[in-house]
């Protein structure tokens, strides 16, 4: 039986490889390569077109803009998957018992919601913006290593499939229930549960792939920003978004390879009998240290570029330059450095040495300073400005508001005595969701709306954009403020069931989640229909940035693109910039 299986697999793999080779032979003529000796570049005699057409274009593209769009689609699909997972959890939590789904399925959803949102939505959707816009902002032809860029993207779909494999009908494979932190000994498959199952191995492998992808992307961005800038783009006038991407890439470079190594060690513990994280070996605490040495910088990997987006977009609709630009850059760098010195604040209750605890508390509190510098700079940029409450601007303001709540609750968490009480309660969940959903996702939505005309050539529907913002703002605050109160009341996190006294707050949280879902459906409908049939943007300045001297490089590029494009008739109504006509109401 086993030999038949092996034989079948061998034949299958053989057919697969022959298929790949045949396809490659069809699209690629290896003999046509220009020999190196002839100098490459410009020597191509036959064709100069940029990309093939149809599906092959998207499978083979190495253009940074196309790869940005691929990242964007991938991120949005993941956002939908992760969102459906959490909706399943929140609907289950409408009542105290495990009525709708089993506790173990709840645990699986919880694990995969976290991993999906952080690794398959957060990091890729940031890469969507950086791929599309960093080369435009620094006036580079493309990324420094276009093919590495494509490899980094194509690692993500197989990674996602491996991470979600437990939910697919694949024989005995069950989804992981380890939570995204993969704490040992549970994640090492020790004990009587079912976490020695291959589903956990597949999830770890998938996570490893997304880490490799992020590292490749980071190396590429560092090389691109340092070496590919146009002459007129100096360190002094490099835009704020590229600064944050550069810093983020530096963090990825130090954090993700460590995650990759720790994951391989965990796989070896699970499959080959090593004892890196076993009690008789390195001990379970080793995993927590390694994981959080990656895990906390990961938070800043996710938040710095969205902060860059807000710093970039907010001044455009305030009619003023970013207040204290230099200090925003310095605070970005400071957060980048400090982020590696705070990891053990996740472990205050593990019984670690109190002297170590105190030093981690000090650094954690210190990180509030550069964060506050940024917040003050955003507020002072808006102060006495000529605010235009367009949808991207609303999301930027929402970012600042939610970030203040998320940040201040974090300061309390960083304090050891407070943390000892609140650790492992819903307070922590509320705190980090204020940052991740309330701030990071808000900034990403701001970016999607702000640059919608560039990557679609069309304008979205303004009214739906505002509905999306307000539903998201209300939903976020209802959901996560309820969580903060639940935490104060003593509700522990990660449970599928709860005591009846928590019912009302849990129901409020779930209603908030449904409001968020409604907002998200509106957003998806708006983007899909506007992309297909929205009014075409006629000039390269749909936001009227030239009036306030805020026009930037990517819009100049867009303007050139429109001018050189062949016109296809002026039938469609011309676009009115979002919010332009509504300033009186605001």
């Amino acid at each position, binding site marked *: 039986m086993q030999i038949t299986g*092996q034989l079948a*697999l*061998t034949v*299958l*793999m*053989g057919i697969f*490889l022959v298929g*790949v080779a045949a*396809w*490659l032979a069809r*699209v*690629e*003529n*290896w*003999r*046509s*390569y*220009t*020999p*190196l000796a002839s100098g*490459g570049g410009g020597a*191509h*005699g*036959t*064709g*100069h*077109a*940029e*990309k*093939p057409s149809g599906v*092959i*274009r998207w*499978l*083979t*593209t*190495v253009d940074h803009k*196309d790869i940005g769009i691929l990242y964007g689609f991938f991120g949005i699909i993941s956002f939908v998957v992760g969102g459906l997972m959490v909706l399943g959890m929140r609907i289950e939590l409408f009542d105290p018992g495990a009525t709708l789904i089993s506790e173990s399925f709840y645990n699986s959803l919880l694990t995969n919601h976290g991993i999906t949102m952080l690794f398959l939505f957060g990091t890729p959707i940031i890469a969507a913006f950086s791929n599309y816009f960093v080369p435009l902002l620094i006036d580079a032809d*493309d990324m420094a290593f*276009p*093919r*590495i860029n*494509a*490899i*980094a*993207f*194509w*690692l993500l779909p*197989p*990674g996602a499939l*491996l991470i979600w494999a437990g939910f697919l009908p694949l024989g005995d494979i069950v989804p992981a229930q380890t939570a995204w932190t993969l704490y040992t000994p549970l994640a090492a498959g020790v004990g009587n549960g079912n976490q020695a199952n*291959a589903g956990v*191995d597949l999830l770890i*492998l*998938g996570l*490893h*792939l997304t880490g*490799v992808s992020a590292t490749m992307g980071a190396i590429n961005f560092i090389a691109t920003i340092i070496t590919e800038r146009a002459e007129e783009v100096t360190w002094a006038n490099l835009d704020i978004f590229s600064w944050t991407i550069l810093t983020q890439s530096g963090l990825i470079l130090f954090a993700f390879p460590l995650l990759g190594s720790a994951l391989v060690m965990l*796989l070896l513990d699970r*499959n*080959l009998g090593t004892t890196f994280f076993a009690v008789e070996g390195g001990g379970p605490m080793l995993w927590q240290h390694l994981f959080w040495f990656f895990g906390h910088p990961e938070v800043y990997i996710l938040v710095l570029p969205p902060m860059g987006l807000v710093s970039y977009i907010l001044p455009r609709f305030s009619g003023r330059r970013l207040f204290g630009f230099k200090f925003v850059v310095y605070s970005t760098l400071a957060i980048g450095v400090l982020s590696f010195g705070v990891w053990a604040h996740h472990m205050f209750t593990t019984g670690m040495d109190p002297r170590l605890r105190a030093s981690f508390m000090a650094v954690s509190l210190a990180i509030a300073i550069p964060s506050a510098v940024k917040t003050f700079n955003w507020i002072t940029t808006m102060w006495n400005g000529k605010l235009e409450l367009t949808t991207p601007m609303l999301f930027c303001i929402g970012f600042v508001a939610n970030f203040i709540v998320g940040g201040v609750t974090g300061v309390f968490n960083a304090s050891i005595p407070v943390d000892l009480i609140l650790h492992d309660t819903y307070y922590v969940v509320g705190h980090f969701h204020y940052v991740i959903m309330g701030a990071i996702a808000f900034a990403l939505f701001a970016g999607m709306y702000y640059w919608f005309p560039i990557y679609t050539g069309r304008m979205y529907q303004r009214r739906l954009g505002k509905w999306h913002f307000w539903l998201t703002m209300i939903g976020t605050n209802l959901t996560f403020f309820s969580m903060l109160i639940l935490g104060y009341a003593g509700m522990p996190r990660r449970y599928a069931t709860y005591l009846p006294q928590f019912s009302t707050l849990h129901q409020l949280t779930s209603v908030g989640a449904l409001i968020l879902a409604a907002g998200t459906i509106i957003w998806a409908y708006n983007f899909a229909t506007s992309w297909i049939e929205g009014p075409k943007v006629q000039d390269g300045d749909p936001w009227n940035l030239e009036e306030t001297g805020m026009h930037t490089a990517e819009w100049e590029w867009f303007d050139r693109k429109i001018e050189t494009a062949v016109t296809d008739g002026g039938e469609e109504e011309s676009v009115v910039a979002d919010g332009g006509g509504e300033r009186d109401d605001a």
Partner: protein
Amino acid sequence: MNEQPGLSDQYRMASPWPMFVALGIPIAELGVLFDVFPVAVAGLLLFCGSVAGLLRESEYVSSPWLAMGVFAVVLVGIGVAFVFTDVKLVTRGYAVATAGVVLAVGAVGGSLFLPDDAVV
């Protein structure tokens, strides 16, 4: 110059290799980790072959066969180490070494029948 250029010669912003490099890594990892011989061999072949093609395309090497030969040597080395040292991952070692041998055969065959400089 050949009459019909390939994809990456005809189009400035396209390359067929990255997707297969990215596909080769997870297939090889799955095969080696779960000790599934054919999957491990296929994944390593796909990965190393695609990287060789990519190196040639971007003109970091003058011939894909040489790059494949280097990969073959590395894989055989790792495979032998898996089999004969204290690591004792015998079956996985055979898989890695087999992939190396197949690559070596491919590299020799390719350089004999499809020499890269024959078309200049």
